[in-house]
């Protein structure tokens, strides 16, 4: 699901201000941005508006049932068709955006938080701690994350919180391993050795050199991670273990549509399409950021 640590290379030390500036594209850089990244940006912007102010983008009331217009296939009036109660699916997908993004963001936030705690400890502590933590991570990576998430749902019941916690915990080992690798590489790099040779105190080296450099790929990880966690949470919801059906959360829409797949394909395909479009867009943006960070595209 995530890329192995060695694919994230390490960048030479620059000033912190410089690092921030590199995320803000210059006029020249904007001209080199591929069209796909712009398109992805538009898609993400659309979903952000949908999350904050869904009524701006809705064509119908997402909760109003219409028994004369049930299970209609996609048309100009109903972009994504209507469901078994005649509700407009497109408006429902827009309505569910906020909750779905919140689940995705919550899960990735929790995941990165835990991963930082474990990864930084393993990456900075001594060899024994590192070995023990790495072995522990290996075990967590050994069993399918989906099953771990299911165990949480079984133990705590299916609620939004359980969904966020289980997806967040499930993704954490992969990120922890990435962060650990990143810290190890930076810790053993030439400039850290140089700083040590100059007699700088260890705390300062960690603060000024190791942290800023090891953390830079994190922005990319979070960007792509939101897409992944949303896909994940939707898998759980698809199995009927997510948020309860009345809510138009994307996964719940998928779960509700499952029973109608033979007569109304759009109920299943369209919410999935929204999920994939969002995940694809953040992945495209994330990969572009990663390429720029690694200097494969000249900013």
């Amino acid at each position, binding site marked *: 699901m995530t890329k192995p640590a060695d694919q994230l290379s390490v960048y030479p030390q620059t000033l912190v201000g410089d690092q921030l500036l590199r995320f803000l594209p210059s006029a020249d850089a904007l001209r080199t941005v591929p069209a796909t990244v712009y398109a992805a940006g538009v898609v993400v912007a659309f979903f952000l508006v949908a999350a904050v102010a869904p009524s701006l983008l809705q064509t119908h009331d997402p909760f109003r049932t219409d028994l004369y217009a049930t299970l209609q296939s996609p048309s100009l009036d109903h972009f994504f068709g209507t469901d078994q109660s005649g509700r407009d699916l497109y408006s429902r997908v827009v309505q569910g955006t906020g909750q779905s993004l919140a689940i995705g963001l919550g899960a990735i936030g929790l995941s990165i938080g835990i991963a930082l705690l474990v990864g930084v400890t393993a990456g900075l502590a001594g060899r024994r701690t590192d070995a023990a933590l790495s072995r522990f991570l290996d075990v967590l990576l050994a069993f399918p*994350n989906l*099953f771990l998430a299911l165990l949480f749902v*079984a133990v705590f019941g299916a609620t939004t919180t359980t969904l966020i916690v289980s997806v967040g915990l499930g993704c954490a080992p992969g990120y922890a391993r990435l962060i650990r690798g990143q810290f190890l590489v930076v810790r053993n790099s030439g400039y850290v050795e140089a700083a040590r040779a100059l007699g700088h105190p260890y705390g300062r080296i960690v603060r000024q050199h190791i942290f800023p450099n090891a953390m830079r790929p994190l922005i990319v990880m979070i960007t792509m991670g939101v897409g992944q966690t949303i896909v994940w949470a939707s898998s759980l919801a698809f*199995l009927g273990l997510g948020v309860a059906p009345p809510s138009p959360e994307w996964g719940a829409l998928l779960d509700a549509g499952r029973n109608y797949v033979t007569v109304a394909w759009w109920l299943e*395909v369209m919410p999935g399409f929204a999920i*994939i479009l969002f995940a694809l867009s953040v992945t495209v943006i994330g990969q572009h950021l990663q390429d720029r960070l690694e200097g494969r595209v000249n900013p």
Partner: protein
Amino acid sequence: MSESTGLVAGEPTRAGRVRVVLHRLLGAIFVIWATASITFGVQSLLPGDRAELMINAAAGTFTQPTAAELAAVNAKYGFDRPFWEQYLHYIGGVLQGDLGESYQSHRPVAELIAGQIAPTLALTLSALALAWAIAIAVTVFSGGRDGPVARAFGGFQVIKAVAPPYWIGTILLVVFSIHLRWVPVEGGGGLQGLILPSLALAIPLSGFIGQIIRAEFGRVLEQPFVTSARMRGMGNLAVRLRHVLRHAVLPGITLSGWALGSLFSGAAVIETVFARPGIGGLLVTGTATRDIPLVTGIIIASAAAYVIANLIVDLLYPIIDPRLKQS
């Protein structure tokens, strides 16, 4: 590549090989022990009373059982004993293949899993085989080239990274079963019913395997032995098939051990899409009815499957790649 140059010094002794195997076995047991411990830990976080949950799960009710009823269940399953005693009892059972008893049906979990594992294994293995077939076909024809096929495959990588198998499965179901009617919607256990589910699992996985072997394929194409084969007058396709592919598949084989684990959980979801029998249905019902021993049993069984798959890959590796025997 120096098979018969009389290099005896690098050959491992029999004792050395035994030690490697033992080391791997210990590692495998460690992973299973740790998995069982983690699942036990999560179980002990269960809010509320476990005996109450059990009685309600079995009876399908939501009432408050009497103290006598609770005490009977607590005594039977040892919930009244100290935490450590329960833990040791549980781990001991797991190591002997005892995964506990289902809250719902009161049958041994190991028996329930054994009854449902065949369709899931069939799906997992056929998906793996299919993924390899797709990955190899695409790699042989596009590896080391920068044609439209290679670029299309590159674009496909991004999509497969985000397209969840359940969605691919749904699309396949809608297109091939409902609209084209090529395969029945309810495939059942036959070979015909296996086609779409394995394809849904194989498509994302073939992207993963393809990515890995394509990179290696490009590297191997630059090796001197490829040039020498071409100098002997070997055709392009023959070189690709007989010399390059053999080397390029190696990293993909390591990946397959890992992939089996992820296929197993993917299979659970795909079985739901296609309404197939198997572990997936068991898992979903178990989760929905909060049948905790069943869910943990499946987790431990799948961890064991993952560990065994990796063990086999590890032990097969020196046979596939004789160079590894030296190190």
